[in-house]
């Protein structure tokens, strides 16, 4: 999908108006941002906003995440294990140390 994020009041108002008049193209509205359908109309709306408001409009292309295809198994396992931890106050770094789970630093340095 196309993620449109606005950074000024004028751009935010334009985005709101565009979303109102093109509901079918808007997958999700998130305050000053919106996810537009990945159609040429979605792109047209995003580019119009960028044309009008320049750097106050950021456009990114997003893709759904399939964790079973895109995320290494040990990362999935670590997330599941951490959310099932006994003590809610344990930070992840502490939780992972001495286990087979990757450290926060190791996670940070690995590209997805």
């Amino acid at each position, binding site marked *: 999908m196309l993620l449109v994020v606005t950074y000024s*009041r004028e751009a*935010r108002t334009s985005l709101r108006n565009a979303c109102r008049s093109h509901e079918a193209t808007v997958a999700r509205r998130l305050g000053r941002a919106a996810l537009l359908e990945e159609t040429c109309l979605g792109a047209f709306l995003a580019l119009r906003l960028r044309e009008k408001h320049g750097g*106050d409009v950021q456009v990114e292309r997003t893709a759904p995440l399939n964790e079973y295809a895109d995320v290494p198994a040990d990362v999935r396992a670590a997330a599941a294990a951490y959310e099932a931890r006994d003590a809610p106050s344990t930070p992840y770094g502490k939780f992972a140390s001495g286990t087979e789970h990757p450290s926060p630093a190791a996670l940070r340095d690995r590209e997805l």
Partner: protein
Amino acid sequence: MRVVVDGRTLTGRGVDLRDATVPPGTVVEAVFADGPVDGVRVRSPPPGPLHDELAHVEPSPAVSLRGALAAAARSRGERAPEREALVEARTALAAHEVPTVDLAAERRRTAEAGGRERELSERVAGLRGRVQALREAGLDASEAEAELREAVRALSEAETERVAAEQRLDSLRAAASEARDARRRRLALQDRVSNLERAARRSLAERLYAEFRAAVAAVPGEGDAGGAPGEYEGDPATAALAVVRVASPAAPVVVSVDRFDDAATAARRLDAPVVLARSPADATP
């Protein structure tokens, strides 16, 4: 106040221009102007806060009651409790600078480099096939081989170019992300300013509301003030007249609703300098 129109000079706290050929809009302009406007000159103290919101009471005034009441309060020298915070926020906003983020040229360069690379890689594949076919047929492939070598060389160049363009775009994206943080902070400041402005309007309007309710009863026309600015019901022109009555404008308010017999009565009932003007509906075609 001294008004000069059609060669006549009129003075007083209330001036009646209903028999003159001047439309009310011209009189309003003349109130704001230093010199004459279309033959009308209004000499008075300069317009203050009330006039920013309500300089003209017309049959269907398009003013927000809350904003007009806040302006009335300011015309009396009242200050909202939010004022200091508002001044601070406005100053911060004025001083806030945002770096530019325009990566369109880099995005185009990256896209073009990618396109060239794709074209060349198709050409290389095609030439490889041709060379192989020629060899298998036992024919002279030397010319095709030379073309292939040239294409491979060009492809490698294009690839280098594309990688460089992508790296450059990536590093600029990181810088753009910082620039966007600055824009996000500016947006937060803009929101803070407008929230404070709204809160200040609300504070000031509420402070005057009891007086406004009494003023609605004291000016001619239908209207029921209710308990808060959102609750007013009735003729909006009556509300506008009541706002003028609670305000202390130094410059005259132009009144083009037909509610007063004469200018002196209008000035007295509205407790303000007033110019009565023709109703806009009576304007000459």
